[in-house]
């Protein structure tokens, strides 16, 4: 299809009818109904937010960042992960991984769009943000760098995807590499949003900016198994098996490194009983959501990889679904744990106890917008599979 000077190769049969036309298997129907339900929740959640503003959320002065920040991080981590996996083939030239490049780069675009949608309803004044990000940039702010670099990253990803669709691999490589570097910079800046919080000793430091890159790669591989699983209905051909075996082996290494990182992070947090840090680390160790993250995102997938060194792609598909639930808890825990300890520990009113731990549970509106973001992401991806040929072109 020609749009102005651009040649966007849409699939011949792409139409509204082709979108509605899918195989009516129980799984497909379940996914379709879930997506419609999640989109309805997005509409309801956004309506409640527009009527009541931040009062529709359970965020407070002591816990100003809630579920939507965690979900935004979840989506942009997914995007960076997709970008890393997509780059293995078309930027770094690993032939076995080329077949997933186009699909992964498209995945990186839809996940970041879902992330931007969710954050638009968390930032109190998104239009003001777009104006004053340009007119009055706060260059010492990690949020400014993160937001600006992610905007650039999205642009590069779209250009790379355009060249991939047109089989212009040379230009795709140039924009892919640039997009990858900008994406990694954006993502480590997102880590530094937490790493720069000197007031929050549990998060402050170099850990998060580096850990974010590692977990992005892990997330990208989990998602690769999921999208390839749906693409081939778990009936993988030899070429795909080879790709997935390679990814599983990399995943085994990455999860091992992650376990190593997290273990030492917690040990150094607790060592010496440093005020504000050790007690928070101990509190985290006693929380169910931390162990959910550990079991679903680390232990289960690693055990399945170690079983036969990544030779069971179907099992890895299920492990990746478990992994993504674990990754969600990882993001939620990161945001919540950062704010666990009150910054002001004295009571200020009679008949009040001195503050202890900060409690937070997301409101129905926050949950609906978050699920809506997921629904939007799946819908965009599905429309993309109908509109574009996301498989590797023959002869490339």
């Amino acid at each position: 299809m020609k749009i102005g000077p651009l040649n966007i190769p849409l699939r011949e049969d792409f139409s509204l009818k082709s979108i509605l036309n899918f195989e009516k298997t129980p799984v497909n129907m379940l996914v379709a109904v879930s997506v419609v339900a999640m989109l309805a929740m997005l509409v309801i959640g956004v309506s409640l937010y527009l009527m009541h503003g931040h009062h529709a959320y359970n965020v407070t002065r002591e816990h100003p960042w809630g579920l939507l920040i965690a979900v935004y991080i979840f989506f942009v981590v997914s995007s960076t992960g997709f970008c890393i996996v997509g780059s293995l083939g078309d930027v770094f030239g690993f032939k076995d991984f080329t077949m997933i490049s186009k699909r992964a780069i498209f995945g990186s675009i839809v996940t970041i769009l879902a992330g931007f949608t969710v954050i638009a309803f968390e930032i109190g004044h998104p239009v003001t943000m777009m104006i004053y990000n340009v007119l009055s940039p706060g260059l010492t702010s990690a949020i400014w760098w993160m937001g600006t670099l992610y905007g650039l990253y999205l642009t590069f990803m779209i250009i790379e995807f355009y060249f991939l669709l047109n089989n212009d691999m040379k230009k795709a490589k140039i924009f892919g590499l640039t997009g990858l570097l900008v994406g990694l910079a954006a993502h480590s800046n997102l880590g530094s949003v937490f790493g720069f919080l000197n007031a929050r000793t549990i998060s402050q430091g170099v850990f998060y900016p580096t850990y974010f890159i590692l977990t992005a790669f892990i997330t990208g591989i989990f998602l690769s198994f999921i999208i390839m699983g749906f693409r081939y209905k778990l009936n993988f051909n030899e070429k795909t098996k080879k790709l997935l075996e390679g990814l599983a082996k990399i995943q085994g290494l990455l999860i091992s490194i992650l376990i190593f990182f997290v273990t030492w992070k917690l040990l150094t947090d607790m060592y010496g009983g440093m005020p504000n840090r050790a007690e928070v680390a101990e509190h985290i160790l006693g929380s169910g959501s931390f162990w959910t993250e550990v079991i679903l995102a680390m232990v289960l997938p690693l055990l399945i990889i170690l079983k036969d060194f990544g030779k069971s792609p179907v099992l890895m598909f299920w492990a990746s679904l478990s992994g993504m639930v674990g990754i969600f808890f990882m993001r939620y825990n990161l945001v919540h744990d950062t704010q666990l300890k009150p910054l002001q520990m004295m009571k200020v009113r009679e008949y009040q106890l001195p503050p202890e731990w900060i409690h937070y549970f997301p409101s129905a509106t926050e949950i609906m917008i978050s699920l809506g973001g997921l629904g939007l992401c799946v819908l965009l991806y599905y429309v993309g599979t109908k509109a574009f040929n996301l498989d590797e072109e023959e002869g490339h």
Partner: protein
Amino acid sequence: MARYGMALDYKNCINCKACEVACKEENGVLMGADKHRIWVGVNEISGEYPLLDIVSHSFQPSQCQHCDEAPCQMVCPTNATYYDEFHVVRVDSDKCILCSYCMNACPYDARYVDDRTMTVDKCTFCSDTRLARGETTTACQNTCPTKVRTFGDLDDPESEISELLRTREHFSLKANLGTKPKLFYLT
């Protein structure tokens, strides 16, 4: 231009909360709003009767510390938080996007969301009210019955606050973070 700071002879505080009322009245802070702009923290008596630790009981008036190296100013993505001509940390509500990063970054929990403007607000040292009218006192200082607060120009060696800081021992809250607060607690 003056560089304003405040010394607090906090052991004289009787927790009458007149400072909170005066601040609300002067700066149009919502009535009934808890811990908006200024507050008095209470350390309760520790120990068990009859071995009560009487000296542990104290009041600690607090508010924005107007740090010279303010984390809230550094993290603001749109420079909505800025230093005014008196080196007071202020918020330009037109530029505030309510990302809440400053609320997470402030070590003193001095920031809150003003429900009327849906932007982040904080103590201004009465910059846009009393100082703007040419006065050199804050509402909280002016009303304090036990004269806990001394407000003045830190750069003027003749000012009362400079004299106090030269002659009285004092400390700052969370000084280890390097924020260089301009609230000084006299001991």
